[in-house]
């Protein structure tokens, strides 16, 4: 429950920090970066899903007037890179493994010249047999995509907790089912792009619209074969990330390689078509088989899950995503006997990767339907069943996730009331149905080395304004605003007296970036710690100036007061001036850092993966047209437990955006491939839910406080996305008695299922 804190700045809808720049169009996106002498880079991509390169002849392209550099693997160190498995190259070495893979690239004085040059590159291809389905790729006779990976398996997980066989025997009800998800595409309004420069002293400077600044630098350094500090990465404004701009693609690598060869800056911005082919890495699609055992009273007794996850041609973050799908959801409900198997399998398609939810949406699509099926079979109300099983404070999941704050039951109660569950169930309408589900997510995850932390520096200006130096970066979610609020709250200055830097690896200290719903919690703690340290310095000087003890001082509204004698006060500005402009003066500056109290999972994947867990419950009311199969979402209710809400409008935006993306995932989205080529690579064929398609959305935040979070806050950004598809499926079942187990739940699938049901009975 919330600790009654009287916040001055938190919880207020302040003016978004970079809002004016964005609404007036002055924010500089990567397309707005122009360096003197800058060239345009274009990439030659593999037209084949799996093919050996017998020879590449670039001589004709090199001779074209206006071409300044042509590069192939011969211009690279031919060393693999990748966050978990170093299996991808900036430019194909020996063979290409999916349609769209980067094979060669050109830098020229303009785009038309560069594109003309691409047509002059001659490649002698030897087409190889390809495989597009993960389950087929595991078969012994399937073509090998990476010769050293037997059966195309990139990763296997098989963990057993408790006594799974005994638990199933002890169950009163055992159900089994299979589900399948699809690759969903981020559809960020801005495609991936970069501008790379290479200076004579051997240093690269790369402007990128990345959401993970220092991770991008690490990967660039590996791919280029240089030390980290030889690469400077500067984040531009980012037009949407959702995981797709967390640097698992080759755009910046290729720009850097071209810049070095051309000795001129090179800009490469993916076209929309390229973005679909080889840009942001779509959601990992999974086939999920499940068996669950329940006691008569509705308690979960045993859970067995087997996942086949589609890696695409290279690994990126899919290994971690597969782990999340296999294990995370066991933090939502209480039980101890679990078996989780997962296989991550290479196919000749675009590599899959990080997308809001990170494996959890596929898992929740499966588990939250199993819960609904069980409730139905046991004749139980799904809300009752959720309440009975819900995780609570102090729960430790079978895999070692330690829950500190948890308001899941509160969320369940709020959602039940918001959607009007009891009333609507008592007065059922034809073809209308209700569905619900629960969700859990992390606030940061320890999986890149043994670190899930952040750091920030705050320096004070003579006018009393604070400036935060942070490399976490803004991706569009309002992170900068939340950090300024936290710093203002802790420093006791008005929000308008705090500013934050752009993310720049040369100027800010190490941090990991924007993923895993981590920034408010992890970076928020680091900023708060930096502010505490700065406040101590300020109080030390103020105490000298006010002739009192530092421990007697409080800061508020840009002034420092003596407790109990508030007429004895001094402005923060005067304190900073006083400290700087004196003999032996010094800047008022301090750093803060934070590393979450989580651990790296051990070899058996046991261990508390995050510092804090966020929870939620959602419900939907749908109406199904029995003649067409069309599903209309009438109302959607969401309750989220994200601890203290720092920036309400930003938090609401996260909820609304999650539901919009979740509904798209449930009902309409999904990249469709034929022979490894996307058949819907444009926004006419790949449809997104638009503003007009949103249902009536009702939402509440739980009254909640996370003791380890900054002022009680924890993560939120992904939580809402995770369970939506299952909830829609549950509501459809409730409405018309058919259950669709594959995404997206199209009207045609619903209509055919209804017809089958009619014919069957």
């Amino acid at each position: 429950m919330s600790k009654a804190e009287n916040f001055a700045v938190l919880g207020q809808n302040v003016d978004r920090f970079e809002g004016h720049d964005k609404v007036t169009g002055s924010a500089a996106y990567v397309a707005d970066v122009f360096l003197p002498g800058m060239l345009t880079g274009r990439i030659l991509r593999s037209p084949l899903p799996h093919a050996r390169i017998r020879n590449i002849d670039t001589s004709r392209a090199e001779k074209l007037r206006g071409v300044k550099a042509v590069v192939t693997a011969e211009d690279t160190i031919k060393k693999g890179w990748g966050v978990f498995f170093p299996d991808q190259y900036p430019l194909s070495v020996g063979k290409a493994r999916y349609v769209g893979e980067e094979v060669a690239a050109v830098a020229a004085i303009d785009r038309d010249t560069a594109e003309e040059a691409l047509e002059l590159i001659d490649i002698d291809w030897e087409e190889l047999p390809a495989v597009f389905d993960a389950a087929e790729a595991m078969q012994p006779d399937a073509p090998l995509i990476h010769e050293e990976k037997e059966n195309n398996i990139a990763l296997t997980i098989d963990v057993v907790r408790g006594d799974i066989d005994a638990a199933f025997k002890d169950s009163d009800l055992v159900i089994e089912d299979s589900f399948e998800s699809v690759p969903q595409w981020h559809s960020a309004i801005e495609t991936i792009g970069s501008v790379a420069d290479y200076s004579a002293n051997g240093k690269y400077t790369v402007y990128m619209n990345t959401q993970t600044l220092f991770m991008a630098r690490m990967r660039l350094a590996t791919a280029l074969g240089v030390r980290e500090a030889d690469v400077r990465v500067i984040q531009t404004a980012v037009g949407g990330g959702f995981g797709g701009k967390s640097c698992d693609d080759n755009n910046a690598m290729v720009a850097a390689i071209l810049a070095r060869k051309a000795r001129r800056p090179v800009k490469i911005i993916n076209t929309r078509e390229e973005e679909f082919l080889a840009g942001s890495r779509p959601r990992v699609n999974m086939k999920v088989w499940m068996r669950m055992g329940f006691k008569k009273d509705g308690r979960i007794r045993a859970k067995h899950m087997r996942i086949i996850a589609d890696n695409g041609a290279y690994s990126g973050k899919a290994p971690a995503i597969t782990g999340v799908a296999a294990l995370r959801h066991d933090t939502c409900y209480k039980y101890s006997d679990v078996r989780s198997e997962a296989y991550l399998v290479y196919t000749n398609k675009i590599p899959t990767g990080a997308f809001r939810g990170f494996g959890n949406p596929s898992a929740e699509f499966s588990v939250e339907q199993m819960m609904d099926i069980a409730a139905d079979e046991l004749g139980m109300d799904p809300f009752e069943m959720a309440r009975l099983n819900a995780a609570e404070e102090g729960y430790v999941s079978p895999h070692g996730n330690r829950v500190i704050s948890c308001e899941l039951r509160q969320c369940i109660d709020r959602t039940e009331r918001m959607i009007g569950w009891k009333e609507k169930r008592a007065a059922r309408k034809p073809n209308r149905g209700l569905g619900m589900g629960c969700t859990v997510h992390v606030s940061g995850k320890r999986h890149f080395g043994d670190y899930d932390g952040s750091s920030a520096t705050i320096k004070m200006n003579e006018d009393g304004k604070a400036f935060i130096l942070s490399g976490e970066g803004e991706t569009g979610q309002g992170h900068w605003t939340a950090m300024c609020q936290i710093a203002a709250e802790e420093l006791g200055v008005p929000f308008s007296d705090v500013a934050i830097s752009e993310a720049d690896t040369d100027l800010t200290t190490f941090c990991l970036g924007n993923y895993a719903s981590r920034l408010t919690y992890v970076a928020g703690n680091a900023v708060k710690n930096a502010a505490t340290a700065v406040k101590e310095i300020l109080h030390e000087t103020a105490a000298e100036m006010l002739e009192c003890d530092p421990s007697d001082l409080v800061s508020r509204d840009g002034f420092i007061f003596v407790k109990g004698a508030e007429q004895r006060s001094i402005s923060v500005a005067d304190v900073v001036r006083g400290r700087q402009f004196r003999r032996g003066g010094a800047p008022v500056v301090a750093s803060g850092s934070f590393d979450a109290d989580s651990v790296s999972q051990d070899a058996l994947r046991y261990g508390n993966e995050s510092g804090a867990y966020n929870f939620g419950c959602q419900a939907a009311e749908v109406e199904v047209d029995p003649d067409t199969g069309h599903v209309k979402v009438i109302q959607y209710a969401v309750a989220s437990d994200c601890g203290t809400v720092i920036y309400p409008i930003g938090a609401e935006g996260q909820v609304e955006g999650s539901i919009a993306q979740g509904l798209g995932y449930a009902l309409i989205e999904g990249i469709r491939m034929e022979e490894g080529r996307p058949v819907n690579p444009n926004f006419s064929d790949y449809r997104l839910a638009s503003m007009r398609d949103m249902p009536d959305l009702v939402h509440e935040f739980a009254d909640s406080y996370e003791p380890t979070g900054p002022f009680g806050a924890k993560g939120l950004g992904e939580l809402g996305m995770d369970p939506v598809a299952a909830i829609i499926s549950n509501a459809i079942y409730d409405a018309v008695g058919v259950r669709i187990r594959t995404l997206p739940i199209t009207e045609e699938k619903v209509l055919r299922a209804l017809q089958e049901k009619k014919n069957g009975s």
Partner: protein
Amino acid sequence: MRAKFEYLAPTSLDEVCALLQEHEGDAKLLAGGTALVMWLRMGLLSPGYVIDLENVPGLDGITYDPADGLRIGAGVKHRDLELCPEVREHYPLLQETFYKVAQPRIRLMATVGGNLSHGDPMTDPGASFMALDAEVTLRSSRGERTVSVEDFFVDYYETALEPDEILTSIHVPPPAGPAWSHIKFTPRSEEDFATVGVAVTLTGTSSRCDDARIALNSVGPTIFRARAAEDVLRGRDLSPARIEEAGAAAADASDPIEDVRGSSDYKRDLTAVFVHRALEQAAARLG
């Protein structure tokens, strides 16, 4: 590679016709550009000349006369037609149809002439114009001719326009009666193209249908009139059985392709459902 073409900006219809004749087959007219620019970008068209209609007088304006009906300049924007008071009052079917096209950003740019001339079977206005018996005027240096909207759509992205012709206006006869209906089925998103589109007008009474016009989009290589379905109703009653029969006849006449919106079987099934529903709605308006 991006398309390269010469941009021409004539200032009279005669000049447009002369340019079309001069560059016959190698020129494309540019109206709102919402379809043309996309096709150029995707490399589906590579004309040597693009003729901009922006500065050409005589293509704008909507006039209504009770005796003559409605005349719409080819250059009228979707949004202007949708908001025109006379259209709202006398041709609610058109008002509703245009309101359902894409979203305001597109409707503010796209022209009525561009929509029809594009010949895209998935566009909406063509079916409603057909159900109202509209005709288009086509002009070239050779002269002027009128063609019914029904005959204007020839095949997949193919219209009756000759390479040297420009569509200058659309004429809709005076409204025959109040009974109409329009259904645009967009299950993926309200902003999507139709999975099935149906426009219906009826005259007569509920016990005797004097005339019926049923036009469909998105379920065949062109927008088309389901004449067999009309025949089921003409001169007969509008009983549920009759309406059902008409729906089935329309589905028989459809020839949809499979795409991201569904299989051809599904779209054919839906054609029956939506023609049925549209007829019910229109019949209810007959009173």
